[in-house]
């Protein structure tokens, strides 16, 4: 049985959304964590090394970090495919963008929010404006992140774009707004928001 260590209105929501799309049985375990305002404590029930969410256990496997969890789930549960499997067409793009989400997109946007200038050669990511340009250009000719089919990338990156535009951390553009409307009207998105 899959257990998702979850806290409402946090990053673990995207894994809940993915589990709903995959249509596999799972349970959620609500855990507390250390919030930005200093409230909340690391929950000893949470297996994540820093007590963050999401973490996930599945028959003895334990995972942390959203992209790792998403990849594990989409590789293992293939009844409703939510990403190309190893050896399938599009796997190269799928893996690259899964790594891009936490390794480039997130630190780039957070650095801008906190006024940290980009340093070429040192930082493993890119300036936030460039990330926005790359994402807009990528989505300008596609319905979903990998093209025609909805995948876990639309949850991690697409959902991320939706929440970051809402928080004013990313510039709203017609391309990205029509994209996020397309993905947030899915029933599984509503389930995440209600959970």
């Amino acid at each position: 049985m899959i257990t998702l260590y979850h806290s409402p209105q946090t990053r673990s929501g995207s894994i809940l959304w993915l589990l709903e799309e995959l249509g596999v049985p799972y349970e959620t375990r609500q855990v507390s964590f250390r919030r930005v305002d200093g409230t909340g404590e690391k929950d000893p029930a949470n297996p994540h090394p820093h007590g963050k969410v999401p973490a996930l256990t599945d028959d003895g496997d334990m995972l942390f970090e959203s992209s790792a969890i998403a990849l594990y789930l989409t590789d293992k549960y293939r009844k409703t495919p939510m990403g190309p499997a190893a050896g399938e067409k599009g796997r190269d793009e799928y893996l690259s963008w899964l790594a891009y989400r936490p390794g480039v997109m997130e630190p780039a946007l957070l650095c801008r929010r906190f006024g940290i200038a980009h340093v070429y050669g040192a930082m493993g990511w890119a300036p936030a404006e460039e990330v926005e340009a790359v994402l807009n250009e990528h989505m300008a000719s596609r319905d979903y992140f990998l093209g025609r089919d909805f995948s876990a990338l639309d949850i991690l990156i697409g959902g991320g774009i939706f929440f970051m535009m809402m928080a004013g951390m990313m510039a709203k553009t017609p391309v990205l707004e029509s994209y996020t409307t397309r993905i947030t009207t899915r029933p599984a998105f509503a389930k995440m928001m209600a959970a």
Partner: protein
Amino acid sequence: MITLYHRPKTRSSRFIWLLEELGQPYEIKEVTLRSAQGGSPDPANPHPHGKVPAISDNGEVVWESPAIALYLTDKYPTAGIGPTVGDPTRGAYLSWLVYYGSALEPALMSKFMNVAVPVGTAGWVELEPTIETVVKTLSAGPYLLGEKFSAADILYASTFAMFGAMPIMPKSPVIDAYVKRCLDRPAHARAQAKEAA
């Protein structure tokens, strides 16, 4: 044929090491990078931000270190340096690969730039608890996945080797021994010779 888009003495160097471990034929294509002084992305580099590493392999293009490591070890499993789908250490392998890019890199950079990590907002934490987590895992080790060396160790050991001497890195005999254990591998020596050639 695998092509590695490379710049000497950068984050792409360790992929020569990984390719030497894999034992598959590959070629290295040197590209230029932007620096603090400016410049523009090298059009020969398929990475969307013109960064390294990136690879191409029979028309498939992969970029970002964790993605490249996973792609290569999944596609060429005979070298045994990455557990494939269904292996009991697959979950740990994926978690450590992603954690490298999502937590270790930004934690190092936050410390290097001397900025406080917005805990709760950021997906990462300060460098000290990040290193503590790695040390705890390696103490049970000797590798991140336990008994078996994997491509995840290439990412971590090469990073520690690069930052180890800097004052921002917390000192740890466990990490020092780990770096030595990994760098002592013949494939690492071959990669160094290749890069120096």
